[in-house]
């Protein structure tokens, strides 16, 4: 099981509306592909189709040459892990138990012997080892996201599909989570990450796939794809792309009036309750 994912001519219609149209995407083992695009471009729908949650109206998705529908749920769970945007938990399980749920596909196999070890490694890699005895519903959104990421890692998938894993995270953990995703790719996994932050995509992705209106607008290395003209067109907002420390940085062009006065900013950072 290597985790090679191929989508061909994917089309998804929901209630007659075309959400995806003719999407081709290959993800090879060892590579991290970032899916970017404006709201409503179809990123999450594409991820759901790649995960096998959604039966595409047209086209096929194959994993290691087999259609997703040909896999049984448990078999698929040993190969691909998915991190959803929103974390839900119906009952008050502890974070440790939630991470251990990622081991479920391996229950009854030889790999079960490594459960404790794998769970411990996953919690330390996502920096949640200190949270494992807390009740999951009492954690903050960012902590829940990291615990859920640990659950996906505990699954030891060869294909990782991450839907906006950085959305609820602070700066440190955004970098941390993508570094772990990067390391998974270096270790031979195929990784697809939906991202909103184009600079993060530029820094961590091998390839970037730009979706717009349900179609692939461009796909290639960050340098090929993250161009000011293309992004400005796709996002309908002018951007600057600059180089900083060897990586591309994408900055939206802002009118001077939109920015707050600098003095106010420094003041309010010092004082949590500034005098009005």
């Amino acid at each position, binding site marked *: 099981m290597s985790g090679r994912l191929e989508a061909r001519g994917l089309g998804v219609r929901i209630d007659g509306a075309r959400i995806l149209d003719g999407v081709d995407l290959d993800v090879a083992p060892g590579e991290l592909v970032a899916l970017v695009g404006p709201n409503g471009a179809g990123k999450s729908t594409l991820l759901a189709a790649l995960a096998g949650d959604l039966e595409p109206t047209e086209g096929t998705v194959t994993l290691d040459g087999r259609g997703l529908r040909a896999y*049984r749920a448990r078999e698929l769970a040993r190969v691909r892990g998915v991190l959803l945007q929103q974390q839900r938990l*119906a009952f*008050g399980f502890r974070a440790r138990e939630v991470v251990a749920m990622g081991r479920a596909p391996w229950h009854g196999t030889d790999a079960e012997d490594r459960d404790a*070890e794998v769970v411990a490694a996953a919690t330390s*890699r996502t920096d949640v080892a200190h949270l494992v005895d807390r009740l999951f519903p009492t954690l903050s959104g960012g902590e829940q996201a990291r615990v859920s990421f640990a659950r996906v890692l505990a*699954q030891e998938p060869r294909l990782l599909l991450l839907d906006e894993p950085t959305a609820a995270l602070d700066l440190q*953990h955004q970098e941390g989570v993508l570094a772990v995703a990067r390391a998974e790719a270096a270790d031979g996994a195929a990784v697809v990450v939906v991202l909103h932050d184009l600079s993060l995509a530029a820094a961590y992705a091998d390839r970037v796939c730009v979706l717009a209106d349900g179609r692939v607008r461009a796909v290639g290395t960050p340098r090929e794809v993250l161009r000011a003209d293309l992004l400005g067109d796709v996002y309908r907002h002018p951007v600057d792309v600059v180089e900083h420390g060897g990586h591309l940085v994408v900055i939206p062009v802002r009118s001077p009036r939109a920015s707050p006065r600098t003095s106010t900013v420094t003041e309010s950072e010092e004082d949590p309750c500034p005098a009005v």
Partner: protein
Amino acid sequence: MTTLTPPTAGRSGDRSGGSGQDGPTSGAGTPGGRPRAVARALVSRVGLLGGLLLLLLGAGLASAAVGQFPIPPSEVLGSVLHRLGLDLGPLPTHPQAENSLWNVRFPRVVMTAVVGAALATAGALMQGVFGNPLAEPSVVGVSAGAAVAAAAVIVFSLDFLGPWTIAACAFAGGLVTTLLVYVMARDNGRTEVVTLVLTGIAINAVANAGLAFLLFLADTSSREEIVFWTLGSFNGSRWAEVQVALPIAAVGVGLSLLLARQLDLLALGDRAARHVGVDVERLRLVCIGLVALLTAVGVAFCGVIAFVGLVVPHLIRLVAGPGHRLLVPASALAGAALLVLADLWARTAITSADLPIGMLTSLIGGPFFFWLLRRARRTAGGWA
């Protein structure tokens, strides 16, 4: 401590099994701590189940000792042991004691325990499937649906399956209503509290209309039978009924135990549960069948006994957490013990009267349900 553990270090540590440079720390922390934690978890697990089993046996003994004439618990125990071929303890001295114990009291106690276990397990299962601690067979109308079918058997004197007829029809009625609730209350992969409760109101209303119609059709004697039976009572339980109820309940609880691990995963929501390898649709259909089966066991022989499946799993969750591997067996034992005690109370609260137990459980369960509902509103983020 700046960022997450460097990925490469985490990986290599994981591969070398902690023998690298971080060996000493992880070696000191885990091998000593983990087996002890596992042992502690095992002890608390066995302790809880053992304690509940003792409670159930004690409750059964107490319940069998009390009746028209008291039989000392030592004599009750002696009678049981002698039947088991052990020549231990005193035999009952009262001339009617043996007869009363084995033909009246024991069948009733066993039936109560069986139904208590079945109803509590049904509640735990239903809550797991709906991902909602307010789901319960009587609240959402499954009990009422089973009751309509069973009442029809009484009114029309149906007898196509012998002693199994009522149970089979109650099961069919329960199955239809559970499926209805499932289809109507679920939206987009989750069940909201409001939708579930309102669905329950709608289904209960229709079921009660059906019951009223059957009462209208029935002759006086069936009418009386139905009325007493909708109140819920274990009065007049016989071994013949236990012989039908016990195997059904045992199969239902046994299968529920097998599903426990998957029910835990279902708490993640449908999509995430599928991502960790649960065949969600199949699991849900099996669970719905089991809920209908377990509810039907109770309804078919003892009428509608509400809220057992709500109160018991909730109390167990408070003590032992939400993991179904402990929740399901503990709920079964606690449900059995609780209902045996409630039945004892129903028989003794008023001298020479046998109160309907369904009335008592609703008297306690109703306010409890309200309290849970209030709490659900406060913590709305979870599942309101």
